[in-house]
C-alpha cells in the first residue's frame, strides 16, 4: 500500500525550516528518502531502518518512528538548491524484498530567495 506523504506542497523562504512526513498503514521495515528536480531522475538522500533511527545529512535529517509507522524528513535553514519533489519509499518487509519500494505521492518543496 502506498505511503501517505504530508504536506503535498510547501513554500519556504531561504533559511526557513520544513518537515515532510511519510506514513504507512503497515509496519515499516525501512524508509528511503529521495529528491527529484523537475525533469530529472530522483536522487537518493538517506535510508532509515527499523529501530527508531535518526540520520543526518548536512542540514537534512530524518527520523523513523516504528510505533507510529512513520518517518519524517527535516530540512533546516533551507537553501535554493533544496527545491524539488521529495519522495519517501517504504519497504514493509526486509530480507527478500529485493529492494522493492512503494513510493509516496511526493511533496513539492519550493524555496524562494
Amino acid at each position, binding site marked *: 500500500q*502506498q505511503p501517505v506523504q504530508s504536506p503535498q506542497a510547501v513554500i519556504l523562504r531561504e533559511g526557513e525550516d520544513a518537515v515532510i512526513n511519510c506514513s504507512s498503514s503497515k509496519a515499516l521495515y*525501512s524508509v*528511503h528518502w*529521495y529528491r527529484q528536480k523537475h525533469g*530529472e*531522475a*530522483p*536522487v*537518493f538522500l538517506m*535510508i532509515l*531502518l527499523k529501530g527508531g533511527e535518526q540520520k543526518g545529512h548536512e542540514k537534512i535529517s530524518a527520523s523513523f518512528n516504528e510505533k507510529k509507522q512513520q518517518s519524517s524528513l527535516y530540512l533546516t535553514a533551507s537553501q535554493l538548491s533544496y527545491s524539488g519533489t521529495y*519522495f519517501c*519509499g517504504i*519497504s514493509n518487509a*526486509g*530480507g527478500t524484498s*529485493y*529492494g*522493492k*519500494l*512503494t*513510493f*509516496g*505521492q*511526493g511533496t513539492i518543496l519550493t524555496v524562494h530567495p
Partner: protein
Amino acid sequence: SQTIHQWPATLVQPVGSPLSLECTVEGTSNPNLYWYRQAAGRGLQLLFYSVGIGQISSEVPQNLSASRPQDRQFILSSKKLLLSDSGFYLCAWARTVMDSPLHFGNGTRLTVT
C-alpha cells in the same frame, strides 16, 4: 564508480506501435534492476524488477514486458502501445544487499499519441 545509462531520453510514438527502452549499468556486477514509471505529477510505480539474468518479476498487470538478456542490461518493451503508457520511465539499479539505495537513470519521457 558505477553509472547507469538509459535511452532514449524522449520518445514520441503513435498508439499501436512497438516500444523498446534500454538500460545498462556499468561498474558493478549482478545488480538488482528495476523499471519504474512516473505519471505526470505523480509518484513512482514499480513495474518490473530483476535479480538476475532472465529473472523478471512483474508488479502490475499491464501492456508492457521486460527482459534481462545480460547481467547489466534491462529492456522494457511493448508490442502495441496504448495512450495510457505515456509517462516518465526510470530504470534503476541497487546492490544485492539488504536496504541498498536505488540509483536511477536519467529517464525516458514517452508520449503516446
